[in-house]
């Protein structure tokens, strides 16, 4: 038995703790990261609301089946599903000012992720609308409900219920994209953590940022898991 080795391991462990979990650095930067946390939450909530609303609106417009309009919707949806969100953000932030259309980072991130979420949501809502059996339309129409009445009272409630599991997962995935805001100077969690790390020359703020993301998203992912089983459609 070499008495030196446990002691050496102890020092390594302490060094690791000091590097990644330095209490003093963490305490210094905790308030800033908390602010970043709130900004992330704010950004995420705005994206979820506007993205889902726009997606639903587009799906409803598409159900009128006006040919040229639908081509346009399908193209826009495909575009925002195919492009990496960071490319869209970079394009809005660095590309548009060239023609005098500049947004600040927060607006850019919100707009880009809203469009991405709306594209995915439109596709999911539309699939849900199509999946409601034709008989439901016929039954409602036979009682005198009009097109919009049928859509609103009979078809959409069923379509939305069917689409809750895929929609939840997609929404979670896209709200995680708020971290991309760090690239365009949005002071959200990652960005605050990174600048704090640079300032203190210690990665503990990054650890703190990671913990903030765990606090924010682990419950959301678990809730998503639960929703997936809860809303499995039974007929």
């Amino acid at each position: 038995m070499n008495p030196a080795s446990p002691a050496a391991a102890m020092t390594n462990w302490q060094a690791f703790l000091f590097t990644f979990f330095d209490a003093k650095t963490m305490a210094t930067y905790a308030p800033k990261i908390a602010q970043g946390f709130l900004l992330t939450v704010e950004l995420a909530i705005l994206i979820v609301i506007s993205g889902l609303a726009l997606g639903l609106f587009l799906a409803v417009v598409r159900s009128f089946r006006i040919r040229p309009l639908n081509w346009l919707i399908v193209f826009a949806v495909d575009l925002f599903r195919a492009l990496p969100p960071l490319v869209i953000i970079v394009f809005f932030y660095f590309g548009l000012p060239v023609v005098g259309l500049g947004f600040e980072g927060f607006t850019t991130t919100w707009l880009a992720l809203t469009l991405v979420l709306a594209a995915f949501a439109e596709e999911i809502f539309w699939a849900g609308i199509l999946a409601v059996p034709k008989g439901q339309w016929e039954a409602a129409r036979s009682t005198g409900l009009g097109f919009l009445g049928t859509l609103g009272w009979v078809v959409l409630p069923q379509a939305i219920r069917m689409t809750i599991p895929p929609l939840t997962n997609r929404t979670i995935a896209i709200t995680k994209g708020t971290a991309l805001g760090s690239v365009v100077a949005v002071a959200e969690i990652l960005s605050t953590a990174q600048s704090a790390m640079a300032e203190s020359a210690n990665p503990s703020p990054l650890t703190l940022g990671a913990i903030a993301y765990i606090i924010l998203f682990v419950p959301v992912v678990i809730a998503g898991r639960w929703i997936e089983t809860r809303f499995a459609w039974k007929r």
Partner: protein
Amino acid sequence: METLLDLRDAFFNLDIILRASPILISGFWMTLKLILTVVPLGLLGGLIVALLYTVPSRAVRWPLIVYVDLFRAFPPLVLLVFIYAGLPFAGYEISAFAAVSLGFFLNTSSYYGEILRAGIESIPRGQVEAARSTGLSKWQAMTWVVLPQAVRNVLPDLISNTLEVAKLTSLASVVALPELLFQARQAQSLTFNATPIMAAAIVYFVLLWPLVRLLSRLEHRMIASH
């Protein structure tokens, strides 16, 4: 007319496209290389996660659930920055390519793992029982009977995730890996012209659009069959 020409000069500038094309092309190859590294690795990792999950032991399952939920919860960019900027503090120097591969592996294997697990669970027990009754071993039943059906059941999700992984590679630009987006931004900042970014966007779109179309068809079929 004037504004149209302005727009053309700002976003579709032929002169700039010609000048930037060598670095854009090298960026494109790097993006492809990333996709072709991360997708197979992630699939392999996901398969291992899904197979381990079939072991009926809590001691195996709980760590897997923690692994999957943790790395699905982390924004991939956070993971990437943590690995790339954090690890050197612990004394591990790591190349940008290795950092990206590792970060995306953790993220992607969790997603693929969760998808494949759901696929395996969607296969009725009777399939295994039938296979075992004909003398196949546990692993043979898994390989030849369960997995092929499982993959078919979750094919849209697998393709969807692959599309996401392909788009994810653009994050590598943040850690200065010279892939397509990074190169486009370099060119853009040198010329103060949006054409390189536009060109990169078009390349991404042309590369990934077929996948989006295919996916949209498969998804409609999936939801309709529920």
